């Protein structure tokens, strides 16, 4: 198998962005969870799960060609997007550790992409 196509990396990247929005909806949906099993099924949670499923479709299309050992680590970019949405939508603090972790993940994904060429 020769290298991992950029188109595959782009599909996985796109899937990770959609998945991070799924996490935002799950978070806002879970904040409304209070009592009773059927109350769990609110619109935000359903939308969050739907976005996760959609992101899986892009991920599956993305891993058709290329190496899983290159494409799977790129899912970690989801952490980066989620960090931004947490700051933007939930006003969560940007700590130095989060900043360093984010930098390391970006650097790691860059290396993995380079190694997959």
């Amino acid at each position, binding site marked *: *198998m020769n290298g991992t196509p950029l188109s595959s990396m782009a599909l996985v990247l796109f899937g990770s962005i959609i998945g991070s929005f799924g996490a935002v909806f799950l978070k806002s949906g879970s904040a409304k969870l209070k009592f009773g099993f059927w109350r769990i099924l609110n619109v935000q949670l359903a939308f969050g799960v739907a976005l*996760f*499923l959609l992101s*899986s*479709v892009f*991920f*599956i*299309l993305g*891993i*058709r060609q290329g*190496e*899983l*050992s*290159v494409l*799977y*680590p790129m899912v*970690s970019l989801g*952490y980066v997007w989620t*960090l931004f949405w947490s700051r933007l939508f939930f006003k969560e603090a940007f*700590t*130095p*550790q*989060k*900043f*360093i*972790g*984010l*930098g*390391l*993940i*970006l*650097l*790691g*994904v*860059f*290396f*993995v*992409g*380079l*190694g*997959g060429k």
Partner: protein
Amino acid sequence: MSSAAANPVTATDAPPRRKGAGLVFCCTVLGAAAQILLKTGANQMAHPSLWAIVTSIPLLAGLSLYGISTLLLVLALRDGELSLLYPVIALTYVWVTVLSLIIFHDRANPIKLLGITTIVIGVAVLGRGSRR
């Protein structure tokens, strides 16, 4: 008497943390197995379509396993210490890489392995920043 009264408190305090880490560890193994099934199904897909995805047994099995591991992970993270659990979560990258090398004969090269190691450390550091 007072020490006997204090002991049950510490005894009930410790296990949930360890149980959380054990559960998360199981999630990483399940999650990695899910990725292998997804890759197997994706490789078999001649013409990509939504129909091809929902009728592929390895893809459905992989998605189900991924769903189960995610659900368990959410349960474990709910009352666990994130700074302890994130480094465990990052193990998924290690399993997927090792399994990809063995099963799919992915090439191992120093830059790729350096990248994966950097990501694992990054996720662990991220968890430390999320301490409650």
